[in-house]
């Protein structure tokens, strides 16, 4: 296959960046999209040019590191597929493919197609956990969890944190990401104890990072490689409203007399 690639090139965070066009003449349909970039980079290095920087690691669709916006689509044209699992047989000989980085104010470009997604880590650090220290857990079967809840929690927990939802959303909103974690933990008895503070703090952090808000267009769900459902956003909205209503003023501490 012969392909024309229009790739975003940007030297570093400060550079303004521009598109560069490359011709690839021997693309095998069996290659993954990233392997095609490997070939391009080998050629570029051979010619003494700077190869295209892009994020990737596991290349089996689970680590969430790959992140290319291909022909206007997060992770390319296939649904339920990460860039690394996209294969060239889905393209036609002679195609021109435009590849851009995730675009969001909260995901600044570091170089070429590499963006900084540490905002996601900070959202999790704000409350995406159960506060249980190692060793303090009771026997795992002490608390039964209805199978339906466990399955629903798993479906939400399948999020790989790639950021395709943000990239695909016209508002660069991170609500699908944040809501997946909030609803996973809200569904499980283990997570219910902290649900009020969790949703308040995570939403606060999400807003502080500069993500947009949700206008329910559904692009995030359509582009999510793990098919995380919009339902989670409704759950988050509900949790947030309930938390606002039910949040009590903190007591002055629970320390005993020393």
């Amino acid at each position, binding site marked *: 296959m012969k392909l024309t690639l229009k790739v975003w090139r940007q030297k570093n965070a400060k550079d303004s960046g521009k598109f560069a066009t490359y011709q690839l003449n021997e693309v095998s349909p069996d290659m993954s999209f990233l392997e095609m970039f490997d070939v391009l980079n080998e050629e570029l290095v051979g010619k003494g040019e*700077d*190869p295209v920087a892009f994020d*990737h690691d596991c290349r089996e669709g689970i680590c969430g*590191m790959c992140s290319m916006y291909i022909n206007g689509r997060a992770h390319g044209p296939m649904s339920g597929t990460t860039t690394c699992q996209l294969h060239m047989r889905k393209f036609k000989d002679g195609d021109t493919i435009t590849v851009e980085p995730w675009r969001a104010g909260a995901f600044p470009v570091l170089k070429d197609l590499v963006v900084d997604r540490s905002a996601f880590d900070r959202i999790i*650090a704000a409350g995406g956990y159960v506060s249980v220290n*190692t*060793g303090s857990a009771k026997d*795992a079967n002490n608390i039964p969890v209805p199978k339906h809840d466990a399955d629903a929690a798993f479906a939400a927990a399948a999020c790989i944190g790639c950021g395709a939802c943000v990239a695909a959303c016209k508002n660069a909103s991170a609500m699908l990401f944040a809501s997946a974690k909030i609803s996973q933990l809200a569904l499980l008895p283990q997570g219910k104890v902290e649900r009020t503070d969790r949703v308040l703090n995570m939403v606060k952090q999400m807003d502080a990072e500069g993500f947009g808000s949700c206008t329910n267009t559904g692009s995030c769900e359509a582009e999510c490689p793990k098919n995380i459902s919009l339902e989670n956003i409704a759950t988050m909205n509900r949790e947030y409203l309930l938390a606002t209503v039910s949040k009590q003023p903190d007591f002055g501490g629970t320390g005993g007399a020393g």
Partner: protein
Amino acid sequence: MSSKINSRIPEGSLEQKWTTYRSTTALVNPANKRSLEIIVVGSGLAGASAAASLAELGYKVKCFCFQDSPRRAHSIAAQGGINAAKNYQNDGDSVYRLFYDTIKGGDYRAREANVHRLAEVSASIIDQCVAQGVPFAREYGGLLANRSFGGTQVQRTFYASGQTGQQLLLGAYSALERQVGLGSVKMYNRHEMLEIVNIEGKCRGIIARNLVTGEITRHFGHAVLLCTGGYGNVFFLSTNAMGSNVTAAWKAHKKGAFFGNPCFTQIHPTCIPVSGDHQSKLTLMSESLRNDGRIWVPKKQGDTRKASEIPEDERDYYLERRYPAFGNLVPRDVASRAAKERCDAGYGVGASKMAVYLDYTAAIERYGKTKATQLNENNPGEARIRELGKQVVAEKYGNLFEMYEKITGENPYEVPMRIYPAVHYTMGGLWVDYELMTTVPGLYALGEANFSDHGANRLGASALMQGLADGYFVIPYTIGTYLSNEIRTKPVPTDHEAFVEAEKDVRENIARMMNVKGSKTVDHFHKRLGKIMWEKCGMARNEKGLNEAIVEIRALREEFWRDVRIPGSADELNPELEKAGRVADFLELGELMCMDALNRAESCGGHFREESQAEDGEAMRDDANFMYVAAWEYKGNTQFEMHKETLVYEKVKPSQRSYK
């Protein structure tokens, strides 16, 4: 046993060692913990769980990962499950059975005391993960579900669909992020450790490179934990992530940490085969597929007919032929070698001829007939049987079949899958004592990075168990033993000459690489190294091949340093430079792996020496001469000296495995 290594196994009976150790080892009081700093390199199951647990205890922790977030670590890709001796199924499981299965599965090359401790803490791991909100599979009654795995006779594997590793890692990651949020852990994303810093014989810190800016930074720690995973990428093609590397462990090795059993590599039999030279990595298909699939090759060499055109009597179901008792369910190493044997003999299939068929036709028919009976359909046509059969298979293996189709473009319901073995896990790693400390005081290795509890072969669903055991339940105790003697040690300022010196070495090494300005890319060398390793230090090894490999690797290394080309500069985001550093280390490790394989003139577990086999081609262990861990010491200038840790089996009596 060599005087340079002391495995520090506690006295007492096997069952009591860990309990006694925990109750008697020295403690660090909470006030002192606040002033003790610990560096954790790597954020996978072992790293994230260790960093979080130590921070919870009150230590000051710095955690490093080379990815853009700690959640990306390759533990995330583990599919199958995690073992634990919970005996929830009431099927006779116990700590002893898990211990015994692990020792036997490791072909009697693991340390009894470590493995027993692993089995003891396994149950607590499940408790901890459930408390964190890990959504394990459950039964309708709301209790945890189990499945069987890897030929064990009990159901002790906990799982979350085919994404167990992901869910466990996200649990550990959330615990880690909680500590980051609380300010107890400082996280360094996109940082790569490039050197350890030793002061007066103790490890006191690391030198790291900021992968975005290229900045080289110094970090002090009273102790350093390497949780940096395995080195399967020395083969270039493996199921490891692209970034998985040996660099941290190797730098530590060169600074005094011995390397244990480097040649022990696990090769997984059911991976999607290589499709061309462009291939960058291999994808695993869960081992569970062998439960229902039949593996075969044509009886005729070089047969180019399509699978469907080859009649039944011209197919060779070689596993069923060679191992009538276990058939397609022989252990990983046996299945892998048998596939290689057929392909090498010219019976392979597919364009590359380096693949065998995994055929679901029979299973689809069998399930279809059963289903038709269930539905009271009498005399269903052949098409109807296949339709029903496909439905059943899709329920059980749908996501795997989908993945296969995505990657190969072939529909596995219609044509047999092509599979071939691929490098998957490395049992070898940094040698550690019972406390997980390497031969450098204050330097620890956890998870796949250490030479592990898996001996010469790891059982399925045990890698996740070991990573989390080390991080959650072992290191929080054992590190106290060391740090209780360090409470008077003030943090060493990073302008100490040892830091200055180490940083200088790192800078010089980078400059040396950048200045080669040769003509070949890093991947070019990596692929050639991988080919040597795969052909001569892969599934089957022999003296001649290994000797050749050592010579070839040395030549390749010399060529690398003469002719590698790294574009760009060292003070920017430069993936080629990152790769170059890792490949440079693989080029040294590869040689040591071959030396170790050469030294171990026996077949055990994943290590198969062609000279050591029975008349029927089965592996032959040599307990009289090789019942030891080979711990290699770096002597400078790629010279190594081997030390032996003799393995003593008090509890389990070693026997030869047979699957006939």
